[in-house]
């Protein structure tokens, strides 16, 4: 496949070629340049990945190709976008009439967006949304459009297409919706498909399926794909050629192997070194800091926790169960329960990181929240340093919370927009009355030093900070009271990779210095492999596999763990693993009737400390 790699297409051959594109937003003093001097081309049947972090201009570029950038307040200032049409003639998309552009969109250029929730209209059936485009662009009759819609549904491998056509978007899972969106984009057999972060909102196993689907559709139809992503691993799996963007400009362009194996630009090198690669921790027992972010090699944090220290169990969770009622009927009675967390047990030692990993809805976040009692558990025990957390009266619960703090996923939402950063970090200190005002000021300032933020930020508001800086504030707040346990709920998921690597290193440094224990909740297997001592894999509310990091990653025993690990894209174009499974897997539901008695979680110990859920309790897994 790599041999058939197209040479950088020259302008005559190229399906679309962008030259010196400059897009501006606003006017006068407030003018912002979205992208500047961007040139690249996409050949027929080629996948070009545009990769970059937030603010790199990758989405602006893709929206310009559809002339949708104008609807976002942008303006193509200079440059040309030459598109070769089916008929053979060429036109400059940057200059065509907006009305004419409408006939091109959807017909010759298809587009898929990031959010499968919002790119379908919730009030129309799938059939209506699919056939509308067909009838408008191809002038098909109602019956012919329906036949074609069915064909498309089959083409994107949606099970039971007849039934799905009658359904509304909310009745479909995220992966199904994205398949429908792809079917809509493919409806008129476009020659160019623009995919803007099409799998970012999806779980990793669903992502693998969607990537394989796009790859097959491209090969079957000889379609060119312009793939926009922030994820180097996805790039390695999908791209023929790669364009790396940074701050609105192209920093490097080349064939995928060249970009990954001999990157020329410093930025590309930094980006690649910041990506944790699944499997690179093979044979290592302790977490390891990310290298290559700065000029000097990084000293590995020496674990402060001594051998006898690490034997102390800090947190012990026994048979934790959390359920949410499902209300229904006229009287809003409880008609069923969501078994979000079902009979989960584990323990964390002092100075140790336990990672809970799984896909959305598996109960990993609820587990963390139940331990902190932000969500009340249904049953079970949580022992923190001799306290039975679930039974504590409110007064003692506050005291126990001093020992366990949380870092949330979204650094934009977890800081109060109306409070200065000093006050945000001082919050727990003030709540627990830890010192006078001047003592708190002093402590907050040292915390800023600790998380490597300048003290000049003390008086600022959250909106003045970048995502990574905000997450540092959230971490400073979490460690302010010298807690023993920090629960990090997808704490690095919303960050750009380079920032993610820095925050991961910060977390590891803090652990080494302060002897912290982490409950690290994440969906990202590669990140988990980096940071954890132990791993619990969750599926449908249960831990299906638990053990030392090396055991779980190098010798996965449960079917779900295996499928999860095989679905993770690897940031190495030589290790392509994108292949389409037969038929999309449907996720089992964690909703059970009120009188349902779940079986207890029983485990087999396959090696010391490596536990695998017995099939009788986890019979829900059908992999």
């Amino acid at each position: 496949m790599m041999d058939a790699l197209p040479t950088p297409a020259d302008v005559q051959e190229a399906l679309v070629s962008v030259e010196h594109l400059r897009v501006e937003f606003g006017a006068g003093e407030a003018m912002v340049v979205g992208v500047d001097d961007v040139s690249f081309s996409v050949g027929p049947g080629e996948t070009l990945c545009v990769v970059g972090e937030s603010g790199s201009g990758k989405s602006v570029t893709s929206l310009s190709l559809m002339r949708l950038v104008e609807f976002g307040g942008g303006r193509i200032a200079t440059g040309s976008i030459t598109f070769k049409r089916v008929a053979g003639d060429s036109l400059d998309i940057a200059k065509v009439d907006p009305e004419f552009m409408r006939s091109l969109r959807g017909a010759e250029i298809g587009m898929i967006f990031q959010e499968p929730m919002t790119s379908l209209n919730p009030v129309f059936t799938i059939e209506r949304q699919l056939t509308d485009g067909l009838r408008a662009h191809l002038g098909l009759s109602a019956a012919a459009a329906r036949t074609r819609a069915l064909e498309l549904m089959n083409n994107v491998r949606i099970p039971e297409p007849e039934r799905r056509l009658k359904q509304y978007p909310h009745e479909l899972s995220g992966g199904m919706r994205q398949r429908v969106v792809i079917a809509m984009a493919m409806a008129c057999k476009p020659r160019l498909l623009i995919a803007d972060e099409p799998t970012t909102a999806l779980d990793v196993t669903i992502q693998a399926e969607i990537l394989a689907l796009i790859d097959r559709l491209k090969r079957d139809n000889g379609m060119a794909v312009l793939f926009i992503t922030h994820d180097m691993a996805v790039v390695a799996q999908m791209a023929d050629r790669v364009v790396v963007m940074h701050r609105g400009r192209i920093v490097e362009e080349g064939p995928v192997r060249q970009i990954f194996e001999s990157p020329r630009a410093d930025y590309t090198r930094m980006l690649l070194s910041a990506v944790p690669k699944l499997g690179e921790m093979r044979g290592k027992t302790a977490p390891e800091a990310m290298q290559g972010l700065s000029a000097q090699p990084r000293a590995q944090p020496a674990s402060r926790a001594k051998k006898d220290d690490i034997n102390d169990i800090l947190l012990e969770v026994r048979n934790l169960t959390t359920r949410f009622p499902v209300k229904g009927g006229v009287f809003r009675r409880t008609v069923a329960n969501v078994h979000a967390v079902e009979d989960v047990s584990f323990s964390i030692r002092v100075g140790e990181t336990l990672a809970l990993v799984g896909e959305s809805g598996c109960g990993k976040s609820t587990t963390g929240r139940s331990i902190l009692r932000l969500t009340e558990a249904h049953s079970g025990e949580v022992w923190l340093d001799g306290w039975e957390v679930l039974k504590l009266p409110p007064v003692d619960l506050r005291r126990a919370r001093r020992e366990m703090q949380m870092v949330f996923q979204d650094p934009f939402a977890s800081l109060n927009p109306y409070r200065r950063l000093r006050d945000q970090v001082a919050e727990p200190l003030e709540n627990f009355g830890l010192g006078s005002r001047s003592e708190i000021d002093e402590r907050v300032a040292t915390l800023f030093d600790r998380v490597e933020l300048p003290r000049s930020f003390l008086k600022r508001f959250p909106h003045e900070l970048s995502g990574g800086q905000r997450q540092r504030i959230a971490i400073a707040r979490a460690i302010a009271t010298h807690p023993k346990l920090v629960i990090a709920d997808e704490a690095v998921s919303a960050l750009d990779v380079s920032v993610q690597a820095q925050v991961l290193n910060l977390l590891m440094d803090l652990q080494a210095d302060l002897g912290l224990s982490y409950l690290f909740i994440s969906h990202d297997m590669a990140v988990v492999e980096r940071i954890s001592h132990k791993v619990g894999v969750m599926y449908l509310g249960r831990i299906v596999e638990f053990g030392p990091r090396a055991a779980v990653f190098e010798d996965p025993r449960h079917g779900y763990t295996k499928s999860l690990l095989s679905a993770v894209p690897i940031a190495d174009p030589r290790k392509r693993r994108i292949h389409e499974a037969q038929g999309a897997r449907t996720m089992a539901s964690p909703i059970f009737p009120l009188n349902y008695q779940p079986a207890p979680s029983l485990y087999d110990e396959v090696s010391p400390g490596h536990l695998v859920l017995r099939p009788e309790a986890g019979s829900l897994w059908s992999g």
Partner: protein
Amino acid sequence: MKRLLTIKALIGFALVAMVLGVAIFAPIFIPEEAANRMHMTARLKSPSGLYWLGTDQLGRDLLFRVMRGARTSLSIAVSAVLISLLLGLPLGLIAGFYRGAIDNVLMRLVDTLLSFPVLLLALVISAMLGPSIPNAIIAIGVAFAPFLARVVRGEVLRVVQMPYVEAARAAGARDQRLIVRHILPNIMPPIIVQATISLAFAILAEAGLSFLGLGTQPPQSSWGLMIQASRDYLDVAPWTALVPGAAVALTVLGLNMSGDILRDIFDPRSK
């Protein structure tokens, strides 16, 4: 960085300043006697050099009356909205924050109040308390409180589940601190907008009550009373309605325009 002092803000502030200036100074410079003096020979005169804004059915100078009416109308509206805030804000905060039974009880009460037309509600309260301006203020304030309580509760429900509120809870914040430090500032923007809109309705509600003899008592003037009085002469002397109507419109316009700015001033993101 957004500019706070836009043209819109300046116009808004200018309007509010003008109305406030009139409300404060008109009663000092225009004696009550001048505003109440009847010119029996000059009834329903259109605006002219002598009577700049015309006269009403009793030959009273509309300019004097509208200027003296500003203080009455504004003070009633502002006090009434403050009362509705005083009642609605804690109600909505408690209902939205604690949810459950207390929310159900409070919100059914609010729904019951909302199911009556505002004016009817104000009328009943006013009639029970007796006709006077302070009672009219209380009546309007109580009648408007359920609307604010609803808006406040909705906002609290939105904000209370924000991660920063959870983060503060996890950081050991007590309920009172959560409400005052974390929730209240974040729900203020829509509350400010709602309150400025309520001011306009309060001016009109006062008119309704006065018309029924339960608010401002003649011969004292208020904008609402003037609009009500003009009702019978709309075809022959439309200015009798237009003059107080324009005063209400300009005030509300000014309040709404500056209400947005007020909201932005509270928001650190716009600095």
